[in-house]
């Protein structure tokens, strides 16, 4: 029963992403949207935790939210998948459930 976890708050402002990472299970997917997208940028203080999570979970970031904040695809942590809105819909369809971390 794979779950899609959606995080829309910056990991530098709220602990939603950390809390999510602490509760997501192997095989789950994590999608970073809105201000949460900044968590996907390489070289930050949260990057190591995201990389560790990618050992058994998939991490995605919504491309348009990244672009709005001035970050291009080459700034994203290696292994994080950039998706568009259609990809967002696909993720909700592919997973059995979704959970939004507000």
């Amino acid at each position, binding site marked *: 029963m794979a779950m899609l976890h959606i995080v829309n708050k910056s990991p*530098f*402002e709220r602990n939603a992403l950390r809390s999510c990472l602490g509760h997501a299970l192997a095989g789950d997917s994590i999608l970073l949207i809105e*201000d949460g997208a*900044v968590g996907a940028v390489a070289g*930050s*203080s949260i990057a190591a935790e995201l990389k560790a999570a990618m050992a058994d979970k998939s991490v995605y970031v919504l491309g348009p*939210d990244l*672009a*709005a904040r001035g970050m291009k695809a080459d700034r994203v942590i290696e292994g994080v998948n950039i998706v568009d809105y259609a990809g967002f819909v696909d993720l909700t369809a592919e997973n059995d459930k979704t959970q939004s971390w507000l």
Partner: protein
Amino acid sequence: MDMTTKTFMYVNRKAPYGTVYALETLEVVLIAAAFEQDVSLAFIDDGVYQIAKGQDTKGIGMKNFSATFKALGDYDITKLYVERESLAERGLTEDDLMPITYEDADDDWAEKPSVQVISRAELAVIMSEQDVTLSF
């Protein structure tokens, strides 16, 4: 009429677009400038993303207001402090910031940078020297 001038610092701590704070700060900053107060802006925590260069909001259907920061010099707002530690924590450097300049009336309108990247300790001192600090 003799109007008292106070120092106002606007502290920006949030990324743009996800919430309305960044846009609202700009509105308030321009009001203070209209009353000829001594205005400065600080960008700390996720606020540093407000002046990241290359913002492209076409994909999220929102107005890209980042160019407004470049107009602040015309309102005599020439002190934009960016905290170095906040950049580093986010994997960013000064190169990721928009070039924002002003024309110095006291120096034959020479174009000078408005953005100053300073340390957390330096910013703390500048904050302590303000008459009024407003956080967004």
